[in-house]
């Protein structure tokens, strides 16, 4: 079978699926849910911030707030330091058009390796839409590492909403990173590559901006990095955290934090993985960082956390309906780390 066969299979999909997707009332279901639950979200958001601020000064207060949300226990955990194998990239590459590209991080847990490509456009910034953090892709770019080849067109970008000049692209594949030591990573970008894929037909203003994007490349460029092994520090949360969810006890355990990632977690039952979501980290000063799109994420996600010591908590949210965004959260659990 070929990939074309998948296309034809999608083409021939069950008519009920097409019918369902094209019924406006079905498509808008999440919106209705969001409106009904908005007061819940507002209350939850305010309380989470209160909890985060309180966590820095009072363990008892933090525990009490989490119980209020439905978590029957907020465990106080200690972070310990462990060595973790990681790979460090080569030097950033700067293109003539001002774009700087860095193979910034490689993280591996023994089964999966994650690379992070970082694209900085400090002078021009990236084209954004209505203040949204915008996930998009490059046209015609590819990255190869050893036998692994990535067509970057198919990978989503996350724009750093704080600076709007940096975009990140995470690539994951199976296997331990040890095998990558000494390998060469080659990034090739075709002309017109450095261009955000805004949807021109629906957004003429953005389309015009893209046409004039100074980041457009006039010719193909290719460059490489040699990957080198290095030791990175990570912190592992010992023990576990339990909370009550729809009459079931859920357990969060084996939380590992590194400067680039948080990995975990086990719960009772696979279904919970789609109902109970990680919202993000709570920092010492009470601010939150985490999911750039507001919450549609499965357990386990990558985000940039520069200073592990500043993390005082992790917020989890549960959903009554199919989870679409953090705003739909109906219950919040807070895991206090300090």
């Amino acid at each position: 079978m070929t990939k074309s066969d998948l296309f034809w299979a999608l083409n021939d999909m069950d008519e009920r699926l097409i019918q369902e997707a094209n019924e406006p009332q079905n498509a808008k279901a999440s919106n209705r849910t969001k409106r009904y639950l908005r007061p819940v979200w507002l209350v939850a958001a305010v309380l989470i911030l209160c909890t985060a601020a309180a966590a820095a000064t009072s363990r008892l207060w933090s525990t009490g707030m989490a119980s209020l949300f439905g978590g029957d226990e907020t465990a106080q955990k200690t972070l310990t330091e462990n060595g973790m194998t990681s790979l460090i990239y080569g030097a950033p590459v700067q293109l003539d058009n001002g774009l700087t590209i860095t193979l910034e991080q490689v993280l591996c847990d023994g089964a999966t390796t994650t690379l992070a490509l970082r694209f900085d456009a400090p002078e021009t910034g990236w084209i954004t839409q209505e203040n949204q953090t915008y996930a998009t892709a490059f046209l015609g770019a590819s990255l190869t590492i050893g036998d692994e080849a990535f067509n970057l067109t198919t990978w989503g970008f996350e724009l750093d909403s704080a600076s709007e000049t940096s975009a990140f692209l995470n690539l994951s594949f199976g296997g331990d990173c040890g095998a990558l030591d000494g390998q060469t990573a080659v990034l090739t970008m075709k002309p017109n590559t450095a261009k955000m894929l805004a949807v021109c037909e629906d957004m003429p203003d953005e389309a015009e901006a893209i046409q004039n994007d100074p980041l457009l490349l006039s010719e193909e460029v290719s460059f490489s990095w040699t990957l080198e092994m290095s030791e990175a520090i990570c912190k592992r949360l010992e023990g576990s955290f339990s909370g009550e969810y729809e009459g079931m006890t859920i357990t969060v355990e084996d939380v590992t934090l590194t400067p680039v990632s948080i990995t975990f977690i086990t719960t009772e039952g696979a279904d919970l993985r789609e109902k109970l979501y990680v919202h993000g980290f709570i920092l010492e000063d009470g601010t939150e960082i985490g999911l750039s799109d507001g919450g549609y994420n499965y357990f386990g996600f990558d985000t940039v956390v520069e200073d592990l010591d500043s993390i005082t908590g992790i917020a989890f949210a549960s959903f009554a309906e199919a989870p679409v965004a953090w705003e739909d959260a109906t219950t919040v659990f807070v895991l206090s780390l300090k």
Partner: protein
Amino acid sequence: MEDQNIIELYWQRSEDAITETKQKYGPYCTKIAYNILASFEDTEECVADTYLKLWDAIPPARPTNLKAYLGRITHNLAINRYRANSGRKHSSLRDVLTELQITELEDPAEEAQRKALADAVSAFLFTLKPDVRSVFVLRYWNYDSISVISQKVGIREATVNSMLYRTRKKLKNYLNKEDWDL
């Protein structure tokens, strides 16, 4: 006019059937065709062919869902036209093919195998949550752009991208488990 009444007009061989179809579903068909062809001229011809095809199909057909039936006719005609065109424009379909890592659209496999894979894909899609499923179908059947899906479903574009990425990954795993080697 209700769909059943429109279908009745086809059965009566009344040309009003096409007028009513055009009025009710013209924009829907146009959108489907344009997503594939990205050419107003081709789209117009494709939609006109759709009405003729529907005229020929009813009777004897009596579709239970006229919109889906009509959408599929438009879809298939537009795909055929897309494949026949040498100078293809940058359509939404082309973006979808790129996402699916298809460089050239080959001829479909023989009927039984094609149907078996389609059934497997449909079975997988039925396991998804309705919102996720709708987003996937709007992208990979309607070929709607990310921004259009975002507007239709009422979620942010970043979330749409995120959903699509994860669903593609899940589908791949599902098909691998079902022994489909794609």
